């Protein structure tokens, strides 16, 4: 079985700091891969290198067998790779519905139809579905800035799915989210994985969340992979325990 995404010997340094130090892994169709590791172990940098926000110093990234190393984020997104950021990234001046339509509109039609065609770019029903799916119905017409932090996190995640991506990279989706919201986020992610056959890579700090959500886990420490495997075996791994307790 060929990999959906394969990362080979990826390296990224900032001046003297080596943030990602030769990371290689693969993600297969339908998987939910978790990436864990202490703060500063290079998880976000790894995402940014995969997604073209940063140019890797070395290494190769392939998506569906094609080399996508250093491709512009918007081109990558149109190929079906979507993401969220560690820090919340929504458009506070737009309503919840507008945020969602924006998140999908560049995947619809051409520049011409986006100028002269319908205002919703044909995404009205898709946006309504997403609003229901993430249980934001009562907030659909509110400005995104008026939502609570947890609701904004849900919206942030929902936006990543509007284009029907094949692969979604989520950077700490549960960060700062309260327990009830956390439960609903995990359950929604699982449902979308099953229904749309979307493949996920999830960076997460919250161990409970990762263990319950992911099918496989990669552990990073100081820019290197120190362990990988299914949740149970990673939890028992001594190097992992040491990396976590050591910090």
């Amino acid at each position: 079985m060929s990999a959906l995404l394969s990362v080979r010997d990826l390296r990224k340094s900032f001046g003297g700091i080596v943030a990602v130090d030769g990371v290689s892994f693969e993600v297969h169709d339908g998987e939910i891969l978790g990436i864990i590791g202490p703060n500063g172990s290079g998880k976000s940098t790894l995402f940014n290198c995969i997604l073209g926000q940063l140019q890797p110093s070395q290494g190769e990234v392939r998506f569906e067998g094609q080399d996508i190393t250093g491709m512009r984020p918007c081109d990558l997104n149109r190929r079906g790779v979507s993401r969220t950021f560690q820090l919340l990234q929504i458009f506070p001046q737009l309503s919840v519905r507008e945020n969602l339509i924006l998140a999908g509109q560049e995947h619809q039609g051409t520049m011409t139809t986006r100028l002269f065609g319908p205002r919703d770019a044909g995404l009205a029903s898709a946006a309504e579905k997403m609003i229901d799916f993430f249980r934001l119905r009562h907030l659909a017409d509110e400005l995104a800035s008026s939502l609570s932090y947890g609701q904004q996190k849900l919206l942030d995640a929902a936006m990543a799915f509007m284009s029907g991506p094949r692969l979604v990279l989520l950077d700490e989706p549960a960060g700062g989210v309260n327990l009830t919201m956390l439960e609903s986020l995990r359950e929604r992610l699982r449902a979308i994985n099953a229904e749309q056959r979307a493949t996920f890579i999830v960076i997460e700090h919250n161990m409970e969340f990762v263990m319950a959500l992911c099918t496989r886990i990669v552990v990073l420490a100081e820019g290197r992979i120190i362990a990988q495997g299914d949740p149970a075996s990673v939890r028992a791994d001594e190097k992992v325990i040491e990396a976590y307790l050591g910090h």
Partner: protein
Amino acid sequence: MNARNIAIAALSAVVIAALLAAPYALKSYGLYILSLWAVTTIGAIGLNLTLGYAGQISLAQGAFVGIGAYCTAILTTKYGYPLPFTYLVAFVSCFSIGWVLGYPALRVEHHYLAFVTLAFTTLVYLIFRNEEWLTGGVSGIGGIPRPVMFGYSLRAPAEFYYFCLANLAAISLAFWGLIRSPWGRAFVAVRENPVRALSLGVDTRRYTLIAFALGAGLGGISGVLLAQLVQFIDPSPFSLTASLNLLLMVVVGGSGYFFGPFVGAIVAVLLPEWLRFSGGLYLICYAILVMVLMAFCPTGLIGLAGRFLKPVSKPAPVPAREQTT
């Protein structure tokens, strides 16, 4: 329809009725000033797209108005081309130059972009002044015609005033359509959070260039009308001051609001006439207004009006941004 929309619709109806009735109440000088307001508003609408919607600062809008004006002056008086053709030439030239001028916006920080556009404005001004073979230098170009439509001349102040209003109406409608289209949403996204927009497939580079180019193109159209209005042009109205004025209009009116440029142009074009009796006091008042407004209401007069019309407004939290470079 909520109370706010009703208020806006009612106010717009009153203003439109007053504008249409103006020729029955005003003499030719009054109509000249109102025509100038309409023409200036068009230029400010263009800058509002670049600055207010797409968030790119430009100190070049006055130069684009100048390019449009000189296109019209040169093509009609020296080569005898019809006016509609000069619209096309002015729009296409300004659009193309604006596109090229937008490239620095993709690489440099905002204040550098101000310098790039400032240098451009100075360059264009020098060309207007020094290239006498083309522009007539400081002695300018006179005898610019006014339009003839269906054999009916629009020379007289009232007719030409209606012609300017019609232009403003058409451009406003087109602009309304633009900002309500997915393009408008993409412009706002590029302004608010370019990193996230890019990750959602929005080609921020392309939209930034389009915003620059379209804004410049509208500046050109404003210039075409200005040349017909004043019928004589020289370089002086197209110095850096003109660009700064347009920038102030957009900001004072409310950048990023549809009606911002209309209000800003009232303050910059009509108010000085109404306050003529005050002599130099007007400029002082204007300067103070700008400072107070920027300190207490950076969203301009429209933003201020919005506060009164919508008393319960929650402050928008500043979006967190990921460091990525």
